[in-house]
């Protein structure tokens, strides 16, 4: 017979009390586990966010420097009207930047336009004012085509497709294998109106350069979400007139001097935390008076901030429940041990070591704890899920509200990879073109908490439980064990 057996005999003999103790301990463990689960889930969600939310660095023309140059020219020559001249990005520069650490991939974007030949572009009432109305970003609109061409490295890497606002419905998207070809992906409404399908050919006539007509082969049809139309501004063509081609074709349409260039090149950074380091390293490789590198890690920062709030709240839950649990359990254990003062006296009179008496109580509580952890393990996932999702949705609402407010104040059209190219006419950078995405509509990715109970969680919970039990027992038994057995037994 030892203290393990005494503990077992005590628990089994007093079933009602043991069950009550298990229920109270389970309730406390349930909340501690829920807190631990949310905290761990917030941790992993933050690290997942680092990988999945992503951040980008965009290489484009340095407009600020170009404006500065324009102003300095206008001050010296007052006869002619000053012109903003920006340089297209050289792909050789982009390839150098792509060699840097933490760059996962890159995609080039070239925007231009052409006229539909032999088929009808979709005409909207807004579009009718395009030719003589306000063009985007000022300047003349002459020479703009009714089809907006977005030359890309691959459609899948464009923000519209990444954010699922555009989806391929038939055929395939543009890939790197389409470089040097006249393959095109058109919008489903345009395809419907002109009865076009994958494999058909259409003709596009360049509005600049040689004004040549190109025969294009349709390799895919995509559907843009209706929200795209909300991006339309005065002077913009209908979003259904937007087509994707390889960036090489878009350069051909723009003219021979645009070979091996792009309006902008967007680099995906594998670790968003390193986005500043990538930008610094990239700046050393480019002529900063002509080009600029802009970063966009707002989604990552939003998720990071949101998860930090969730984690901080979960930490508070864990500590509050642990402290409250310790107090509640300590009170229960104190009452329980006071009730067993007589038993302690008998054991002391038999010469039992004091540590073995404490050990007996501890073993009893550990047995209760094991059952309680099992109960908490079953219920903790449910409670953690409910609490976690509630927290995340609250945090996401807060984050989106603050993010929208920031963008309203400082949002600049063209951020994200389609800054206007040099000598480009306003229509070349039509808002609503597939390759363009304005900052105001950047989709905020919401981190989800994957609340699941792992062995590690249960071990961690067990650790917390043991600490609570030990503290409670020491608080409760300390007073009695200090006394002489005579005091315990006779007085």
């Amino acid at each position: 017979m030892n203290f393990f057996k005494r503990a077992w005999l005590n628990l089994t003999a007093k079933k009602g009390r043991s069950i009550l103790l298990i229920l109270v301990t389970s309730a406390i463990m349930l909340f501690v586990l829920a807190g631990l689960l949310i905290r761990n889930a917030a941790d992993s969600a933050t690290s997942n966010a680092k990988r999945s939310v992503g951040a980008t660095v965009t290489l484009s023309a340095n407009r600020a420097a170009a404006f500065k140059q324009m102003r300095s020219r206008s001050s010296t020559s007052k006869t002619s009207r000053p012109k903003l001249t920006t340089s297209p990005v050289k792909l050789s520069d982009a390839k150098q930047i792509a060699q840097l650490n933490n760059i996962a991939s890159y995609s080039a974007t070239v925007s231009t336009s052409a006229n539909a030949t032999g088929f009808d572009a979709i005409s909207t009432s807004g579009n009718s004012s395009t030719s003589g109305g306000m063009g985007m970003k000022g300047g003349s609109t002459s020479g703009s085509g009714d089809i907006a061409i977005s030359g890309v490295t691959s459609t899948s890497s464009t923000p519209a497709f990444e954010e699922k606002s555009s989806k391929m419905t038939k055929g395939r998207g543009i890939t790197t294998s389409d470089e040097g070809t006249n393959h095109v992906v058109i919008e489903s409404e345009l395809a419907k109106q002109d009865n076009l399908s994958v494999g058909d050919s259409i003709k596009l006539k360049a509005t600049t350069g040689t004004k040549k007509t190109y025969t294009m082969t349709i390799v895919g049809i995509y559907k843009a979400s209706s929200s795209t139309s909300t991006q339309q501004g005065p002077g913009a063509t209908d979003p259904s007139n937007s087509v994707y081609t390889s960036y090489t074709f878009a350069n051909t349409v723009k003219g021979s001097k645009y070979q091996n260039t792009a309006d902008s090149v967007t680099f995906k950074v594998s670790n968003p935390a390193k986005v500043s380091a990538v930008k610094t390293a990239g700046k050393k490789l480019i002529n900063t008076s002509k080009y600029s590198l802009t970063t966009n890690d707002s989604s990552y920062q939003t998720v990071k901030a949101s998860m930090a709030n969730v984690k901080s709240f979960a930490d508070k839950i864990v500590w509050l429940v642990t402290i409250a649990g310790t107090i509640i359990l300590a009170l229960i254990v104190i009452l329980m041990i006071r009730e067993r003062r007589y038993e302690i006296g008998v054991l002391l009179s038999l010469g039992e070591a004091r540590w073995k008496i404490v050990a007996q109580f501890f073993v009893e509580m550990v047995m209760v704890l094991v059952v309680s952890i099992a109960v908490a393990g079953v219920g903790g996932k449910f409670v953690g899920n409910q609490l976690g999702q509630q927290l995340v949705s609250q945090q996401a609402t807060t984050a989106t509200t603050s993010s929208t407010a920031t963008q309203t104040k400082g949002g600049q059209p063209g951020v994200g990879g389609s800054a206007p190219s040099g000598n480009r006419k306003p229509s070349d950078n039509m808002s609503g073109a597939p390759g363009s995405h304005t900052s105001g509509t950047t989709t905020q990715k919401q981190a989800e908490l994957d609340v699941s109970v792992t062995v590690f969680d249960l071990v961690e919970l067990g650790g917390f439980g043991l600490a609570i039990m030990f503290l409670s027992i020491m608080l409760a038994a300390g007073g009695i064990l200090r006394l002489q057995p005579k005091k315990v037994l006779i007085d």
Partner: protein
Amino acid sequence: MLKTTDLGYWYDRQENSLFEHVNLEFKSGTSYAIVGQSGSGKTTFLSLLAGLDKPRAGQIELNGEPINKIGLNNYRKSHVAIVFQSYNLFNYMSPLNNLLTAMAVTDSSHRGDKAFAAAMLHKLGITDAQMTKNVQKLSGGQQQRVAIARTMVCDAKLVVADEPTGNLDEENTKYVIEQFQRIAHDQHKCVIIVTHESDVAKACDHSYRLAKHEFALEG
């Protein structure tokens, strides 16, 4: 076997001592009764002999060795068995488990020997059915028999009992006294019983009366 030298005890002030300069000797194979009025300090004296408390003055020696040198816990564990008026059994155990627990805690030479424990219980009139049910389901007399059986399964040479018959009827009192006499004479142990009952005192080999802070041998 057990000797007290200048033993004294008081609670707050020495002037109000319960007893002082107590010099007594207790021998193996003998039963002793300590009698006296309520509040005279009988139980306190017994608790000092049992190592449940420390004396304020003087010392107790077991076979020539001061018990504080043995260590009170070790002393209780290896040398003393105590019987209380309220039996002091583990109320969540059966009589058999009570004995087995005592054997385990005191490192008895019969540790773990269920048959030995059962035999001791049989000897004291506890049936097989009674020895496996919860001890609280037994009568007061039966519980006291279990408490006495507990002293018999331990190897302790000193048995101290505080009012062991206080809650018992006449028949059970007689039975319990007989058992203590057997423990003293058959098992050659030293039995010291605190009692206020003259019958119990008369049954013991020697009797000390504690009165006016002093012990006096009565018989």
